[in-house]
């Protein structure tokens, strides 16, 4: 149970960063931290005590496997997370070239 609570605290740390920081790069970092905590939570759900990794060996069948369904969901989500993070960084570098700053408050003051 402690692992679930720590995982949730990690999510809250990311949320705190998104809400209170003004720097665009730090907001991106906080978003990726929230993403990572979600991946960890999915992996925690599927864990079975004494289970082995979900690879079937035909010669030596084992009865207990770790749940493969959450792993399959997370597997695709990790790669999508890389693409979306790259898109976020592209937007950020474009904004920096235009306004010469990372501060969202200043960007808002510069242009309405």
């Amino acid at each position, binding site marked *: 149970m402690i692992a679930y609570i720590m995982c949730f605290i990690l999510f809250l740390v990311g949320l705190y960063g998104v809400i209170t920081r003004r720097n665009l790069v730090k907001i991106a970092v906080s978003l990726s931290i929230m993403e990572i905590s979600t991946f960890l939570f999915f992996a925690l759900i599927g864990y079975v005590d004494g289970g082995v990794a979900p690879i079937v060996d035909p010669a030596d069948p084992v009865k207990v496997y770790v749940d493969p369904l959450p792993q399959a969901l997370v597997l695709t989500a*990790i790669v999508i997370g890389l693409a979306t993070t790259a898109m976020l960084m592209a937007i950020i570098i474009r904004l920096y070239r235009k306004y010469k700053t990372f501060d969202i408050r200043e960007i808002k003051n510069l242009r309405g």
Partner: protein
Amino acid sequence: MKGMTIIVKKTTQLIAGMIFMYGIYIIVHGHLTPGGGFAGGVIVAGSFILVTLAYGGDFLKLVKEESGTTIIESLATIMVILIATAGFLFGTRVFFNNFLPKGVVGQLVSAGVLPLYNIFVGTEVAASIFIIFLSLIIFKEESPK
């Protein structure tokens, strides 16, 4: 973007090919060992990114003319769309019936169409991530400071 020193270049020459082969291995053996299309595709893209970082943008003929870069960029985009569409056209027809023979569990040629899915998805992921990286490099080189 300029390349790095000769030590980095020589080391990259030795290593990049092996990383590429490892990615191909992960993709092809996706239905037998840990890994698969997503993991192998990212590793293949990583080998290309390593070569690009070590040798610099000039090595890939990312010249300053507008037409050349635009053509490369458009071709890359079209390639991604074509590969994705090919995978889907091939895929949606057979999503629910694994029509090829299953074979023996544990052999390289088995599991019907799953290795083909692995290969298609791996190609798509590798192309996508490398294109993101290339577009960032082109943007940083060509935009006025």
